[in-house]
């Protein structure tokens, strides 16, 4: 059994008027079943309103399912007793970098999580130093977060989660408000944490370029998981992705269009490098 397991998960946002009568029901998650292995890098794709953020909030029990069950490390998220244990080992990074930093000094913000857990002062210092090193922000420890770039702020937020020693990090569109450089910075950090610290990563995003290194990709649409597989499997299916209003990476799209017009290029090309190889092979064959 994996670290995260969901069975027939269902969640409804229920809107009530002033008398408490149900005005409208919005089914954000509809019968989702998934199983995430420990140490994996999992990406969840979907356009706005596909329910991917709602799913993310279920993993660390910020929301509890209307129906169905979600287990994190064999702990049922609906049970109140498990709440803090779950949140401690399933950290969450949100979209807006400004709205999740609590303290006015970088190192004090990183210490916020361990402080809440009641970690002794001496251990807090070592944890803060370790996690700042892990995200490469050590030299900014005494700075004010207001003076950092978006990407740097997001890395601080990740360090703040790492200081709680989680087994899993859920990132809810961490790059949506960043410029391309900041985006690369954050994704590189996440990838390194996954590789070096063996943290399970759940990356929620709608940028295709960010998911090509994932071990597994889930595509969500209208609350349902509509596709799942390795990035290569997913991106071989350009037509279906377009149906869910998702773009494919530029190279993949180019390869797909060339194949459609008759060139013998394999399916599911993910990087420029692979594309160049395929074209070269093609040239050698035609010589």
């Amino acid at each position, binding site marked *: 059994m994996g670290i995260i397991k969901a069975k027939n998960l269902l969640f409804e946002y229920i809107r009530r008027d002033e008398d408490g009568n149900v005005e409208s029901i919005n089914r954000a998650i509809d019968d989702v079943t998934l199983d995430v292995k420990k140490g994996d890098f999992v990406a969840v794709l979907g356009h706005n309103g596909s329910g991917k953020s709602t799913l993310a909030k279920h993993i*660390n029990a*910020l929301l509890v399912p209307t129906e169905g069950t979600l287990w994190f490390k064999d702990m049922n998220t609906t049970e109140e007793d498990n709440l*803090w244990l779950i*949140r*401690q080992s399933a*950290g*969450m990074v*949100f979209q*807006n970098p*400004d*709205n*999740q*930093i*609590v*303290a*006015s*000094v970088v*190192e*004090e913000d990183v*210490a*916020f*999580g*361990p*402080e*809440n*857990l*009641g*970690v*002794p*002062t001496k251990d*807090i*210092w070592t944890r*803060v130093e370790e996690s700042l090193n892990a995200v490469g922000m050590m030299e900014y420890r005494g700075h004010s*977060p*207001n003076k950092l770039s978006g990407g740097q702020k997001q890395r601080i937020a990740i360090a*703040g*989660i790492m200081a*709680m020693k989680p087994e899993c990090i859920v990132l809810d569109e961490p790059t949506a408000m960043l410029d391309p450089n900041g985006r690369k910075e954050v994704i590189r950090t996440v990838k390194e944490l996954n590789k070096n610290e063996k943290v399970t990563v759940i990356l929620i995003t709608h940028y295709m370029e960010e998911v090509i290194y994932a071990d597994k990709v889930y595509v969500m649409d209208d609350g349902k998981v509509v596709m799942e597989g390795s990035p290569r499997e997913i991106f071989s299916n350009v037509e279906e992705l377009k149906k869910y209003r998702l773009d494919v990476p530029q190279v993949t799209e180019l390869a797909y269009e060339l194949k459609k017009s008759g060139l013998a290029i394999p399916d599911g090309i993910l990087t420029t490098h692979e594309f160049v190889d395929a074209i070269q092979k093609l040239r050698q064959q035609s010589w």
Partner: protein
Amino acid sequence: MIRDITIGQYYPVDSLLHRLDPRVKLIGTILYIISLFAFSNYYGYIIAAAFLFTVIKISKVPLKFILKGLKAVIVLFIFTATFNLFLTPGKIIYELGFIKITIEGIITAVLMTIRLTFLILGSSLMTFTTTPNNLTDGLESLMKPLNKIKVPVHEISMMMSIALRFIPILMEETDKIMKAQMARGADFETGGLVKRAKSLIPLLVPLFVSAFRRANDLAMAMEARCYRGGEGRTKMKPLKYKGRDLAAFLVLVLYITVLVVINRV
């Protein structure tokens, strides 16, 4: 405009005063303010001034920078001085209709202004030498006894430090909204008081909406990081009294003693 106010800002240099425990500085400031209104003869002023300027010297904050802070409260000075000048009864030296100026009035006006100046300088010196975080930590620790009468001390200090963290963010946001509205033809500068107040509505509404959204996000992020109030919480930088803090307390006691003795003369 808001950025010109130097009161309440932190001035980052390394000095003995900066390194003192925030609790010492808080208690010291309160005692100093009380002392300003406790003495009644002229020697008192000299001692209070000597004490203040010595401490400013130790703090390494430039005097010019500190004095700039007085600009923001000049209206208050004029206001109190005028009232003291015209409303103190005594020997009249100038009379015009119902306006009477007395010698006693002039003296109290001058002395009151000096006292207020010292008060502002003394308390702004505390904020110049203490980071906001340190200050809230100090307040939390000093108010801890109030926990017994059910005052939510930890929550209050948490709110204060979050407010301090978000002030610059919200100021920047105000700037942005203002520019966005100006680009669409909003006018914040001309017109009478009523018109100007009305023109603030398209500024304040989006600002409040965004502040609420931020509060919501922050609450969720804090919960996700296991925040559940002050119970069982440890600190990365707990406050501890050191030798220099004891020395500072002794200096304070000395200052108060001298004032009390002088007051008897």
